[in-house]
């Protein structure tokens, strides 16, 4: 790819990028959100037409999407052969298709049952299906867009073992990722993108996580705040909680979060996190009890608690409203905001100003509609709103989702500071690194149950990773 350029209204997504992929190399493409990585991958694949520059590839190009594009109601073999089914007369030659898939899986060391229904497979196995579908066309160039975002550590190791094998057989591979440890562990070269340009390129053997991270943010990384000892008294308690949301269920969960403690729920997405969060927020019915300081109604009354919801656009913000109006959503009935029947807009504005200042929300003014803010700034506003006033209990669901390294460090620091001041914090995250970085205690969640609990020095990345994958 030479001189690639792509302009969207108001933003230059890719600005004169040169990128050569050599046969047999695993090339990492890293960068903050919005740096232009995915756009570049889509241009290489041919899904997006560049405004300038040339793309040349010897042979076919395959792309494994960040969000899988599979047909859940079809079987594995059919998903893989979709559109290229071998025929016997006018009907699909099922036997030939199945044996082709079995042979493909065997050759690439990816264990799979060709007859399984895709929607019934775990995420990691679905990813294998997606990968096999691309491999079936025997691409000479394979692009992987954030392939490990939804995988457990063991699944990540399996995936990369396959990728390394492919490279050895001469395939050129590009991995778009923001997990720098994977870059170090598995790739041969790394290109760093910032603001649409390649700003650094290293041989992986000659670089480090720190060096890549500095190139990504264009400077030094902010330090994450230190955890200080706190007097731990039980504050939040879930006892034998069972609930079902649209997509996930939990059964028989019991755990406590102490004041001045961050408890991290580690797990692969889809193992019950949504059901747990929705039950705590009072959004779905549950059995068992959820209490704050012994009071089972406190959570429902939204008094003295902060919630960072899962989906900021639908669940957290009113996009057409200003920062001031959004700053009090969920807090509109608290004393201090509510005066009799009226909203105290002066207090609301003061809160909004405090959030914007402490969380570095970048906006032209407090009165701009939040839809005008970037995703990262919206997320900082959400976390800021949940933490303002040092609530007794904070439920933080993926608090650093979709924000760049620097902003994530800021958000994590603010969470730790709230903990240091005595808040009980329940952190649900799919990033094990995030949990290991800031949690005092780690609970592993697998298929709706807590399968492990680790405190302080017992926290062991390997054990947690195995439990996340359902191994003991």
């Amino acid at each position, binding site marked *: 790819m030479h001189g690639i350029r792509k302009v969207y209204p*108001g933003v230059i997504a890719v600005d004169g990028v040169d990128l050569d992929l050599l046969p047999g190399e695993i090339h990492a493409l890293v960068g903050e959100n919005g740096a232009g990585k995915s756009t570049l991958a889509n241009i290489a694949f041919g899904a997006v037409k560049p405004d300038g520059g040339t793309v040349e590839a010897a042979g076919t190009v395959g792309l494994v999407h960040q969000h899988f594009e599979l047909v859940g109601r079809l079987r594995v073999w059919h998903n893989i052969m979709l559109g290229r089914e071998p025929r016997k007369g006018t009907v699909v030659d099922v036997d030939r298709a199945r044996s082709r898939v079995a042979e493909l899986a065997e050759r690439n060391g990816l264990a799979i049952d060709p007859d399984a229904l895709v929607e019934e497979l775990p995420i990691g196995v679905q990813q294998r299906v997606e990968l096999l579908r691309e491999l079936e066309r025997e691409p000479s160039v394979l692009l992987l867009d954030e392939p490990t975002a939804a995988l457990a550590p063991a699944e990540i190791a399996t995936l990369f073992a396959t990728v390394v094998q492919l490279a050895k057989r001469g395939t050129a591979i590009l991995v778009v990722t923001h997990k720098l440890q994977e870059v170090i562990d598995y790739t041969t070269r790394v290109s760093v993108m910032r603001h649409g340009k390649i700003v650094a390129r290293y041989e992986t053997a000659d670089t480090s996580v720190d060096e890549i991270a500095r190139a990504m943010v264009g400077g030094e990384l902010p330090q994450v705040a230190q955890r200080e000892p706190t007097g731990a008294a039980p504050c939040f308690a879930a006892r034998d909680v069972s609930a079902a949301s649209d997509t996930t269920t939990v059964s028989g969960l019991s755990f406590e979060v102490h004041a001045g403690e961050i408890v991290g729920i580690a797990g692969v997405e889809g193992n019950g996190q949504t059901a747990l969060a929705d039950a705590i927020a009072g959004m779905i019915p549950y059995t068992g009890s959820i209490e704050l300081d012994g009071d089972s109604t406190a959570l429902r009354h*939204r008094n003295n608690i902060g919630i960072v919801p899962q989906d900021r656009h639908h669940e957290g*913000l009113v996009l057409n409203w200003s920062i001031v109006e959004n700053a*009090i*959503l969920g807090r*509109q009935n608290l004393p201090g905001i509510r005066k009799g029947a*009226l909203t105290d807009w002066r207090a609301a504005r003061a809160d909004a100003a405090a959030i914007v200042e402490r969380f570095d929300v970048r906006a032209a003014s407090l009165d701009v509609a939040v839809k005008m803010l*970037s995703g990262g700034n919206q997320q900082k506003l959400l976390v800021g709103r949940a933490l303002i006033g040092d609530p007794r209990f904070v439920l933080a669901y993926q608090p650093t989702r979709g924000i760049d390294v620097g902003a994530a460090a800021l958000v994590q620091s603010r969470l730790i500071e709230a903990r240091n001041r005595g808040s009980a914090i329940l952190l649900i995250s799919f990033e094990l690194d995030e949990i290991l970085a800031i949690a005092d205690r780690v609970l592993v969640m697998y298929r709706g149950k807590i399968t492990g609990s680790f405190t302080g020095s017992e926290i062991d990345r390997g054990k947690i990773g195995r439990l996340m994958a359902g191994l003991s």
Partner: protein
Amino acid sequence: MKVVLRLLAGPAGALLLAFVLAAVAMLIAGVNPVDGFSALIRGSLGGRRPIAETLVQTTALLFPALGISLAFRAGLFNIGAEGQLLMGGLFAGAVGAHLAGPSWLTVAALLLLGMLGGGIWGGIAGWLRARFNASEIISTLMLNFIALSLAGYLVAGPLKSPLASGAETAPLLPNNWLPAFPTIGSLSFGDTRLTISILIAIATAIVLRFVFTRTVFGYELRAAGEAPEAARRSGINMPRMTLIALSLSGAVAGLGGAAIVTGVLHRFNTSLSPGYGYTAIAVALVGDLNPLWVCVAALGFGILEAGGLMMQADAGVPKDAIRVIEGLIILVLAARRYFATRASSAPI
């Protein structure tokens, strides 16, 4: 050019563009648009009586338009202002024929009864939505027909005045009439149909604006309309909000019905509304659901309603042309919303 476009993109621009299109339509029909529009202006603003009539029409549109605005701001498409208006008028008319007492008290009581009637009618749709998730668009529309049939039956049967030839209630006792509009200097409205109901309507608009912008209830109502899922997660009881918003919306429309009965007709019959509740949807949208702009929009539509008659008599433009103009305004407005949505969906 850009400035002109931006002006045209506002509600005022929608009106202007609609009038241009209406002029073209008149030309096609062989009428000089200048004659047509001058008759329209004379009939609505050309003197004390036309102005009074314009304000009567403005008031009749303003109450349901304000009620509709309230529901729309809560994200509820109340198409049933017509039925709520009728029920409000029916409640006021049925009781007003018999209620004696000090005038200020009985008039106030009848207006409250109107709110009750409209509120019940809106509340039924609200309950159906809150309890069974039944679309309020369908139920409010259907309730219009039920209201019309029910009122028609009652005024032809149990409530029919024995003295009247048509289907209507007995006339209101004079103590139940809304006072005439106060005399301003030498300008008296005693011989017109204009009453203080226009002042009540404007006061209602001011109260609504206050509720929307200053109260916690108004904040929650707007949150429910703008982002239902975020509102639910902020602890707002959405079924309860639905019930309250549709009840209040109906109550405001019902107040309008009672105002027409106590101020204009002095009795109830089903010709109370020539479709005010439907036209009011356009009024609310032209006014951007903002109570104060809705007042301005209602005045605009009031001018059309009042001036239409003169246009027909003097310029030979059928009164239906007014409906065409109203339709054009709604079309232009819909187009404007379409372009506004497109402009704001560009990546930032």
